[in-house]
């Protein structure tokens, strides 16, 4: 059932005082599609992501993941069910090396509560960790402490940490943010390779990346989804242009 939904958001609402950050949002992500969410700053993209992964509780509405209602589930249990994410500002263990970060992620579902065995000497864990490090193109950087990694490399590492848990859905929160042109293209290529293997919800500002990757695009403005459709339709939709792309992007 590649076309069934892995994530269904229904009528989601969240307000902070008088500010409505999520306003009756409905979004679906299919099992093998890249679904991009775009929208101007302050449109509520981060709030939406936080509710999907469980860091914020919605005021109303439902979030279904696979067949389960996860609206009230704490974030670590959502993660265990196969919801993996990357962060807008990378969240890594800066003092750890690349491989230690990966070990942290791969040991999570293989009995992390073990007070004596050293994961750095565990060949099963090490092999797994190395596989994913190589896959995202960080081979040879294993023993480097994360604080010494370049910005783009940290993003790659976050993707590896998400992928190694064999998720059903990837939440990518602005994976191109702060990247140079080269890094951005490399990341786009990496995501291109992942396309079709996972459901991916992509929040991104880089329009080139969005239009080259996304199967479908939803446009979020003031907490509301004003448009959902294919990437091509999105480019042509006058409402989208006006609301989001603005005058600078008329060339699209």
């Amino acid at each position, binding site marked *: 059932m590649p076309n069934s939904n892995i994530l269904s958001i229904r009528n989601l609402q969240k307000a902070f005082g008088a500010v409505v950050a999520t306003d009756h949002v409905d979004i679906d992500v299919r099992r093998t599609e890249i679904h991009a969410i775009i929208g101007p700053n302050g449109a509520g993209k981060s709030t939406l992501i936080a509710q999907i992964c469980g860091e914020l509780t919605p005021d109303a509405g439902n979030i279904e993941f696979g067949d389960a209602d996860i609206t009230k589930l704490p974030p670590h249990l959502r993660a265990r069910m196969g919801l993996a994410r990357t962060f807008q500002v990378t*969240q*890594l263990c800066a003092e750890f090396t690349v491989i230690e970060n990966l070990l942290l992620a791969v040991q999570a579902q293989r009995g992390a509560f*073990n007070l004596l*065995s*050293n994961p750095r000497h565990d060949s099963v864990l090490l092999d797994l960790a190395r596989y994913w490090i190589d896959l995202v193109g960080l081979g040879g950087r294993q023993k480097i402490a994360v604080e010494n990694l370049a910005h783009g490399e940290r993003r790659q590492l976050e993707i590896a940490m998400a992928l190694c848990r064999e998720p059903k859905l990837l939440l990518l929160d602005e994976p191109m943010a702060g990247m140079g042109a080269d890094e951005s293209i490399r990341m786009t290529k990496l995501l291109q390779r992942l396309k079709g293997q996972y459901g991916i919800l992509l929040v991104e500002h880089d329009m080139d990346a969005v239009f080259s990757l996304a199967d479908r695009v939803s446009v979020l403005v003031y907490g509301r989804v004003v448009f959902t459709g294919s990437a091509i339709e999105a480019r042509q939709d006058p409402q989208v242009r006006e609301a989001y792309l603005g005058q600078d992007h008329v060339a699209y």
Partner: protein
Amino acid sequence: MSRLRPSVLLLTALLLLLASFPMWQSFVTSPATIGLLTRIFIYAIAAVSLDLIMGYGAMVSFGHAMFFGLGGYVVAIINYHTFEGGTLLGWSGSNAAVVVWPTAVLCCGMLGLISGYLALRTSGVQFIMITLAFAQLVFFLLVSLQSYGGDDGLMMSRRNVLPLVDVARPETLYYVSLAMLALWTVLCTLIVKSRFGLVLQALRQSQRRVVNVGVAPMPYRLTAFVISAMGTGLAGVLWANHAKFVTPDMVAWTKSGEFIAIVVMGGLGTLIGPILGAAIFICLEQVLSIWTEHWMIIMGPVLVLIALFGQRGIVGALMRARYAE
């Protein structure tokens, strides 16, 4: 691993040196030095325990003296009932260390579980305050226990008995404390390097990351807290046997402060550092208090300087010097 080997060598050399100490001590020093070193070992056990949560888990407990005191008091109270006070809840008591010591350590584990569970619902300054509040609670409880000496504390008529060795001799207690310190440090090192330790240190660096790989923080932090409480309790047990005397001062907030100072001075998150910190702290205390009773006037600024300039304390400074070469 290259990081591990020099420290293992250093530790082994130190162990051998200290183990042979009673043989050459008669040439060099007085028996009082044995007492001094025993005190250092005992404080070091507490400091290593505190470093496990403070250095690796970023949990700054300002109430760890409660475990030190409770460990000591459990030993002294059982001792009191065994030799003087009659039965304790129907139990005639015991003086065997194999019974009394684990009991005391388990009591500390229980207190650690309760106080840790409540304190860990917060973090940062609130965490510090709640641990302090628990310690004050225990302090005033002990002060109010008139049957166990109240303010004046409780004497132990004799030390607990260990099989095969005679702890009544100071040298034996010296060895027992040294062995406990070595074992405890090795165990804590294993824990720090384990899968559990990886999560504990990851939580210090990015809790969001840990949660998002599917791990709940509380069980890890709480377990570390309980282990730390039990280690500090063990130090209290040894202290009671060393001094044959326990007082509510063992739980005073200044004692908790001393433990933190020792860990920071020696080097947060190094395990070996706090041992060095304990040695320096107690030697400084000894030397300065001969010179003046206001020895804290000197100790205070020393601590401030180390906190300001030595990011990882003395051990950290040594490591930087080595890397700089």
